[in-house]
């Protein structure tokens, strides 16, 4: 079942951040959401995960309407949002962070299996399991943020700028892992990125957002050929009503 947004609008006080956007994330696919600073990419993810309520439009997943659901309910549906800037719990240990990712789950043995899977994907997390998350490097924190999200056993993963501030080598590593998560668990992934080339490299479909509207859409191959995608990253757009 795809995740489907229809005519979704969202506001921050006087700022209209999303002006009616529609797109879908087909089951098992990777979709890249691109666009300049302030376009509304993070807002799109926050609307899906229920942190902010859309002022209009519908969000559908698995035959269920999500736009009025609480963030907890949305995690239960299997949609997990890994926020921009990693946002690990700095005073909790790595293991405690991972446990919090599985907060909604009651299947102790499934949680144990998934913990081993996450450790397999990110051996460094096992090594630092007892360390405070705040003491990890940026790259390690990003791995923890992804691992913590995976502990919820997501069917759809919303990833906000996972490569931000990482060295080129780590960026490649993160994208390799994104692909692995998609192929091994059939997890659908909606990935927001500044790094358009890398994102389109792993994605099946892509959308370009500009001041709250989708201006370009197509398969990743099609978007790679359009210059518009890379040239749309010019300056920061201020919110206009």
């Amino acid at each position, binding site marked *: 079942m795809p995740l489907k947004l229809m005519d979704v609008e969202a506001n921050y006080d006087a700022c209209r951040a999303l002006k009616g956007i529609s797109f879908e994330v087909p089951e098992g696919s990777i979709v890249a959401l691109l666009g300049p600073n302030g376009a509304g990419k993070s807002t799109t993810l926050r609307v899906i*995960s229920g*942190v902010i309520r859309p002022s209009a439009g519908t969000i559908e997943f698995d035959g269920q309407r999500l736009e009025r659901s609480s*963030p*907890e309910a949305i*995690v*239960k549906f299997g949609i*997990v*949002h*890994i*926020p921009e800037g990693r*946002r*690990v*719990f*700095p*005073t*909790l240990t790595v293991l*405690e962070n991972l*446990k*919090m*990712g599985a*907060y*909604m789950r009651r299947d102790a043995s499934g949680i144990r299996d998934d913990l081993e899977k996450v450790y397999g994907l990110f051996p460094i997390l096992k090594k630092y399991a007892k360390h*405070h998350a*705040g003491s990890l490097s940026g790259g390690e924190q990003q791995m923890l943020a992804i691992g*913590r999200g995976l502990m*919820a056993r997501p069917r759809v993963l919303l990833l906000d700028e996972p490569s931000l501030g990482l060295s080129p080598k780590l960026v490649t590593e993160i994208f390799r892992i994104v692909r692995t998560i998609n192929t091994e668990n059939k997890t659908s992934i909606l990935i927001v990125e500044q790094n358009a080339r890398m994102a389109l490299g792993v994605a099946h479909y892509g959308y370009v957002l500009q001041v709250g509207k989708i201006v370009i859409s197509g398969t990743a191959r099609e978007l790679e050929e359009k210059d518009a995608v890379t040239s749309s990253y010019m300056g920061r757009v201020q919110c206009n009503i």
Partner: protein
Amino acid sequence: MFAQQLMSGIATGSLYALTAVAIVLIFRNTRTINLAQGDFSMVGAFMALVFFQVLHLSLILAFVATLISVIVLAVLVELLVMRKIRNADWLTLFTATLGVYYILHGVSGWIWGRDTKSFPNIFSVTPVSIGGMLISEAHVINILIAGGIGLLLFLFFKYTRAGIAMRAITDDVEAAQLMGIPVKFVVTLTWAVGGFLAAFAGMLLAPIIYVSPGMMDTVLIKGYVGAVFGGLYSIPGAIVGSLMIGIAENIAGGYLGAQYKVTIAFVMIVLILAFRPRGLMGGQARREV
């Protein structure tokens, strides 16, 4: 003499710590400096009198009933007052707890009267000898109970899902929400823990300071000063701060006279705010349980 004053200082300080830790827990999860924390204890002390002396429940039943009453009171304050304004700025939250403080003072005075009531000494005050030091049995028991509660909290925050979630919310509310942690429920639970601590503080302090609507007023200040020692974030900091206040006021009381007991807490708060505004544990306050 000095060692004895040290011990009684630790005994009273450990009771202040019950208030200080509750203030820290509620503050770091809700940005609320809870001025009603002392009054939760005060209502608890009155309830204990009702259960024990009026309804003639057994000691243990009266104790459990008091514990439940105070937890219910704290949860009601959260659900009926604080939740409605949870997104407001800290000053609004603070002022709301001031309102609760006056309401609880007023209602208690109206129901139970404004005069001071004595509270039965549950534990004997006859001194026992420990390592050559004479210390009242009540002091020993207070230290043991407060220590036991400290251990219980430590285990709760370290090993239970709800306890770890409470710390996660302290770190990052929005990230906690994204992980599916039911933030509203965990905040209610935080107030419930505040009520739990308040009930113990009320029942253990009542035999010492007697029962009246204003009984907790100075204890609240001392607990707050203890909490400030931990930068309002660190539980170990709040405990250390409270013990220091207990010790300092006992020693000051012993050498300078009892009327200096309260003054010493204020002197300490001025000193901390002047020299270590982020608490005794300073920058690392956010790193601890």
